[in-house]
């Protein structure tokens, strides 16, 4: 059964320098609070995996903790560019950022292979694109029945996956609902799993669209109300679109970003965590 722990302890124990870390959540249920705790603890030299790096990885990249990014779409959804991501790629600030770049279909299938205990997955993808050129995690495989050539992508098995969910019970069983994206696969592909939740409840009540992760498939759970802000947790909060819009000017400028990071993350100890 998963341990229920304070977020700072769980991050200190589960997320380590040099780890490959996946923080997933497709617009919904993005584990911002856990990412901020990683920044506060200065866990560094990370390889970050995520289909949509989003503002959460823009912040980690800008904080200088990331050496490599595995991803498929790096924008500020509905707004525009991720300026810290661009600055790292284009100018190497605050450090160079190595990229392992895929399509969504490829990333999703990399997690599927990882969750399935397979070394690779097969898909119809990448044909004719420049994405396959020089990537060490995209190849081809030939169907032994038809002779057709298909794309193969390498399994993605993070050292640790971090997600945010709506609820857990006291045994660490986790319940999430709404758009649940690729979270189950990212969790099951990982060596260690940290789940932040809106609340810990006595009993999980089955509900439409609910996805349950058994406590024995999770390493640690931390109760962090609002831990997905500025993304949202269906049933608890709505997406803070203003935050995403405001992020654009903040992140465009290195100094403004640095000041923001100090004021809103580094100096704010364990904000909103129990």
């Amino acid at each position, binding site marked *: 059964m998963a341990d229920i722990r304070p977020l700072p302890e769980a991050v200190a124990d589960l997320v380590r320098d040099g780890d490959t870390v996946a923080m997933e959540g*497709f*617009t*919904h249920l993005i584990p911002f609070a856990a990412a901020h705790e990683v920044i506060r603890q200065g866990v560094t030299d990370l390889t970050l995996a995520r*289909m*949509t790096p989003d503002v959460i990885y823009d912040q980690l990249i800008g904080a200088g903790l990331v050496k490599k990014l595995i*991803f*498929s*779409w*790096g*924008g500020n*959804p*509905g707004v525009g*560019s*991720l300026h810290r*991501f*661009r600055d790292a*790629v*284009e*100018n190497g600030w605050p450090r160079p950022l190595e990229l392992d*770049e*895929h*399509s*969504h*279909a490829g990333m*999703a*299938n990399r*997690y*599927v292979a990882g969750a399935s205990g397979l070394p690779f997955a097969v*898909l*119809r*993808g*990448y*044909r*004719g*694109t*420049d*994405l396959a050129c020089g990537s060490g995690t995209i190849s081809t495989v030939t169907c032994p029945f038809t002779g*057709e*050539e298909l794309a193969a992508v390498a399994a993605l098995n993070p050292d640790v996956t971090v997600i945010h969910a709506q609820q857990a019970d006291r045994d660490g069983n986790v319940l999430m609902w*709404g*758009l*649940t*994206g*690729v979270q*189950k*696969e990212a969790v099951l592909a990982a060596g260690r799993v940290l789940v932040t939740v809106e609340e810990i409840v006595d009993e999980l009540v089955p509900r439409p*669209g609910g996805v349950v992760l058994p406590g024995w498939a999770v390493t640690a759970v931390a109760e962090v109300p609002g831990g997905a802000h500025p*993304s*949202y947790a*269906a049933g608890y909060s*709505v*997406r803070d*679109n203003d935050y*995403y819009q405001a992020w654009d000017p903040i992140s465009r400028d290195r100094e403004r970003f640095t000041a923001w990071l100090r004021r809103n993350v580094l100096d704010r100890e364990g904000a909103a965590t129990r």
Partner: protein
Amino acid sequence: MTDAPESASPDELMTVNAARALAGARTCFVGIGLPSAAANLARRTIRPDLVLIYESGAVGAKPARLPLSIGDGELAETADAVVSVPEMFNYWLQAGRIDVGFLGAAQIDRYANINTTTVGRGPDRPASRLPGAGGAPEIAAGCGEVLIVLRHSTRNFVDRLHFVTSVGHGTGRGDRERLGLRGRGPVAVITDLGVLRPDPETAEFVLTELHPGVTAEQARAATGWPLRTAAHVGTTAPPTAAELTALRALTNA
């Protein structure tokens, strides 16, 4: 606010005509931004039964307002079904179940190949980093057909792509078959100036329609390759009052 429509802006002409392009579609895989606006407008005008599919997992979404992102809660709450992202890409998109893929782009070339990855800025500057592929490569490969909507400028309509993120018609007719891509590929590029469609023989995109008041010369000037025109270049029908009212209600909601 649904005042009597004033004259349509170029962006409105683009979106209205993009919506009209969905007249025959049953299911549409919707990219965020301009494609989402057009697909939602189609549901409110000519195609009320159109099934909107968003890569975040929503099948049959019926948002009351335009979502800012593909993961807005509204999409899940109004959907016929919500599926995981791997299921979406494998069972629904890859299997060739979706009639129309509706994409935006940063850049396209004359065969409607798409670049959303990186753009060169000359020898002395690092290439400009764009968001990347997202779902587009497999949407472009696997949907029955593809519509592209983007604003017309020489920055967007380029002679040669720095990076091919998603394949339109490759280097010309027959390339999709050679690559084993199963959908028919892009059938129209709808812009704020008019509509381009592929030449039946070469698959090069040529100007087939202009919006009212736009000239072929304007379109040529906004295109980074020598834009050819169809034998007959039509004029798109002006937006109806109903279309403009619906569009403005949608974008102001």
